[in-house]
């Protein structure tokens, strides 16, 4: 099954490239011009056409002039609805918005900014990617943020990829759609292990609990640049008062009190993903405990620190571990 699924994905991607000229993420804004809007009848449209055919045959058989009139009026309306469906997408532009990192298993919420430059409402639009969909409408001249939630199943960088904006407005007989690839990725952290063992304490592996609420502020170790999420208690106010930059005082706790979460310290029987899960759970626990922690991976290491920025950076290392996109500073 996975093999066939993979083959079908490959075939579909090739077809996409061929038919819809999709491939690498496109530069924003992606404007939906007439060349990239496609139109086909929906199943309801096919049923409608069949019904019209039956009605036409009845009209011919019974020589019903008004029957012809009714059939042709409905057919004409259906043809006009093609243009209306096309017009409902024409001129919209799509820009990637933000996408907050999530833990694997949660929904990645992709935000796209859709801009309707025309002074008419764009009703009944649907955005689809990865088999998920969200329905919305754009008001006249409105620029709207549309959130598309997709479940995640693997850690790493999760691109929104092939995205479809479609509408079956007005009559549901014609589907107009456009395929594009916005430059939007979601960072998926490994799912933290559900019931992890207690945090290792320093290199010795002693358990370090909550008792050390002294927050390791014993020895002043130096200054570093302020990061979002740092506690105001550690801001070097004196430096700031002198007109200097906003700095954070760093303290070194007692030797061995830093939590070092090391890849190599984990039992060799664990596989990579399990290790990442445990490390993620430990990172969260360490951050909650309030003591500085460092992360050591075979490919990278993060020096000891605390705060949301530290946590996010560490989780990012875990998320991207072993992937091609493995470099810091992403997200």
């Amino acid at each position: 099954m996975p093999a066939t699924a993979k083959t079908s994905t490959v075939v579909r991607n090739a077809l996409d490239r061929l038919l819809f000229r999709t491939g690498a993420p496109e530069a924003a804004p992606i404007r939906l011009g007439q060349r990239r809007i496609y139109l086909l009848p929906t199943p309801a449209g096919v049923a409608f056409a069949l019904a019209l055919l039956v009605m036409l045959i009845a009209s011919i058989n019974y020589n019903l002039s008004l029957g012809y009139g009714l059939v042709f009026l409905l057919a004409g309306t259906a043809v006009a609805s093609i243009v209306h469906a096309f017009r409902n997408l024409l001129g919209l532009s799509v820009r990637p918005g933000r996408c907050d990192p999530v833990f694997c298993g949660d929904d990645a919420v992709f935000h796209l900014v859709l801009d309707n430059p025309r002074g008419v409402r764009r009703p009944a639009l649907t955005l689809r990617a990865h088999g998920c969909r969200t329905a919305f409408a754009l008001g006249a001249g409105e620029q709207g943020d549309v959130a598309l939630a997709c479940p995640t199943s693997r850690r790493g960088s999760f691109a929104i990829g092939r995205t479809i904006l479609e509408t079956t407005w007005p009559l549901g007989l014609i589907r107009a759609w456009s395929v594009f690839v916005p430059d939007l990725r979601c960072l998926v952290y490994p799912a933290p292990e559900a019931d992890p063992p207690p945090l290792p304490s320093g290199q010795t592996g002693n358990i370090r609990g909550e008792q050390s609420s002294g927050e390791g502020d014993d020895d002043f170790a130096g200054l570093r640049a302020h990061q979002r999420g740092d506690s105001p208690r550690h801001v070097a106010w004196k430096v700031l008062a002198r007109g200097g930059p906003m700095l954070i005082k760093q303290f070194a706790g007692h030797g061995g009190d830093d939590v070092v979460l090391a890849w190599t310290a984990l039992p060799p029987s664990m596989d990579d993903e399990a290790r990442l899960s445990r490390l993620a759970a430990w990172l969260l626990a360490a951050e909650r405990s309030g003591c500085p922690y460092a992360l050591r991976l075979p490919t990278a290491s993060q020096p000891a620190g605390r705060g949301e920025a530290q946590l996010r950076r560490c989780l990012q290392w875990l998320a991207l571990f072993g992937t091609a996109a493995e470099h810091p500073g992403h997200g």
Partner: protein
Amino acid sequence: MADALARLWGEFAAKRWRTRIRAMSPIGTLGRDQGLWLVAAATASLAPHVAQLPGWLSALCGLLLGWRALLLWQRQPPPARPVILLLAIAAGVSVWTEFGHLLGKDPGVAMLAVLLGLKLLEIRAARDIRAAVLLCFFLQLAVFFEDQSLGVAALALCGTLLSVVTLLALGDPAAGNLERLRTGVILLAHGIPFMLALFLLFPRVQGPLWGLPTDAFSARTGLSESMSPGSISDLGQSAEIALRAAFAGPLPAPAQRYWRGPVLTEFDGKSWRASRFDEASTPFYTPAGPHLDYNLTVEAHNRRWVLALDFPGANPGSLRYASDYQLRSMQPLSVRTRFDLRSYPETAVGLSETDVVLAAARRLPESFNPRSRALASRLAADATSDEAILQRVVAHLRDSRLTYTLRPPPLGRESVDDFLFETRHGFCEHFASAFTFLMRATGVPARVVTGYQGGEINPVDGNLVVRQADAHAWAEVWLASRGWTRVDPTALSAPRRIEDGLAAALPDGELLPLFLRPELSWLRHLRFRWEAVSNAWNQRVLGYNPDRQREFLSGLGLARTDWSMLAGLLSGVMLALFASLLIWTGWRRRSRDPLERSWALFSAKLARRRLARRDWEGPLDYGDRISAALPQHADGLRDIAASYARLRYGNGTSVAEARALARKISELEIS
């Protein structure tokens, strides 16, 4: 900070164990608005059928619709499926017992109506709504089996609009009802040019494609192939139109307006019946004398007679000529049909009539009407010729002062005796019957001819309109020197019947049908207008058939048309219409502000170098960025950005400066 993290962790932990519920798209549930639109569409589709459907079925459909509307209004769920299934089975069985079968037009329409009512009750998903809308369309089409008048067309258009709005409401639950209605009207308006093109150019085929069910056409009022006292005076009450004629030249004199229907030769003492006659593709006479050109539109009567004016000349079409001078069509006229005809009123017919026909025209049943027989022999005594007998019979009838009335008293077994000697009140069939009987009793061949006489000129469009009330019976006698000669015995007692029509001929005090009363002239005038419009509708719209289509195309200069050419023309027109709709689509109001337009052009030019302005970028920042990227143009670019910023945000803008900037931007070339 700890709070934020706790929340992060808490959210994660909570989500992990919760079943993920993806937001359902709103399509598929029947909201109150959508449901009520659907009920309205169903009502508009069912309403015109009420007259045709059995009463219990109309009531059932009304109940089902009302029930659904009530449930929707109270936001209640639809009834359970088994209930609907039971209802469906019960309704199917009832329809079967009502009609005795399920195949055919009437039970078909009845089943459609029930299905629509039940489908409405059952609706749960979007697909059900679409199916119900399709049923509405079928029912709208089915109305046209019975009636294709303007009013019905307007009603069907309303039904179509409501159905389209239902589909709109389904696709866009967020829109307001007024907006939906507006969009629906726009959609239909856009559909109308396509409809016109298809209506005019779609290759027309004359139906039926295969045999129609036996109940395809219901019984119609009109003449029949037999005549007994009272059969025509029944028609005298009906204002229904029987035929219309548009004459190319002057109208025929009232005395020439005899529209020939069935000729009745066999008499059994009570009623007159048609005898056998031959048919040929050419007339049984040689048309001669002046002629009248007209086109005749005969309403459907499900019989083959065409009701031409006496006597139609040879016609290249597929018409048949009977040996009793009727013009007949190949098929029963089950739909309103138009014929282009030429008649020669002064043609002499039947100069060399066969003995068989003449013998039949002399035959009388033995044991009827002894007093009339006695009268006939008295009149025929010592007459030298058939002409002399004719004159004596005519003179006798004229002098008898018989009364012409729409309500003749009933006659007994000796119908002619009773009329001539007892009641002395009769309608045209009494006169024709008595006269023909007398002639036969004297030995002169005679027969009854039925048809229509007269007609009313509609002052609005100048057409001659002949109604069922103009149904008439007259007589023909055969004279050796003149062949079959028309004699109208009614005219002897009521001469104004021929010249001025029924209303003038009836004695004062006789209660006239409403439509003939002179004091309601405004009503008559209104009716003339309406009938002229209906006639135009009938001729132009309902009468558009393969022949009319050929005429229309040759009017366009396309003399010889075949299918492929028609298909080509049709696709060409459709494509042109589609293209014009697309142009309307692409048409956008351009920015009114010239400065804005120049600035957009500037960004567009730089976009070629992937340096389009970002939405959040102010003009000066943008100038800096592009100058850095394109150092060879740095001065020019920064200058443009700065002057735009000055013009846009500074005080006192000058038109000259704006124009200079526009020129600078349009002349800008980035190598």
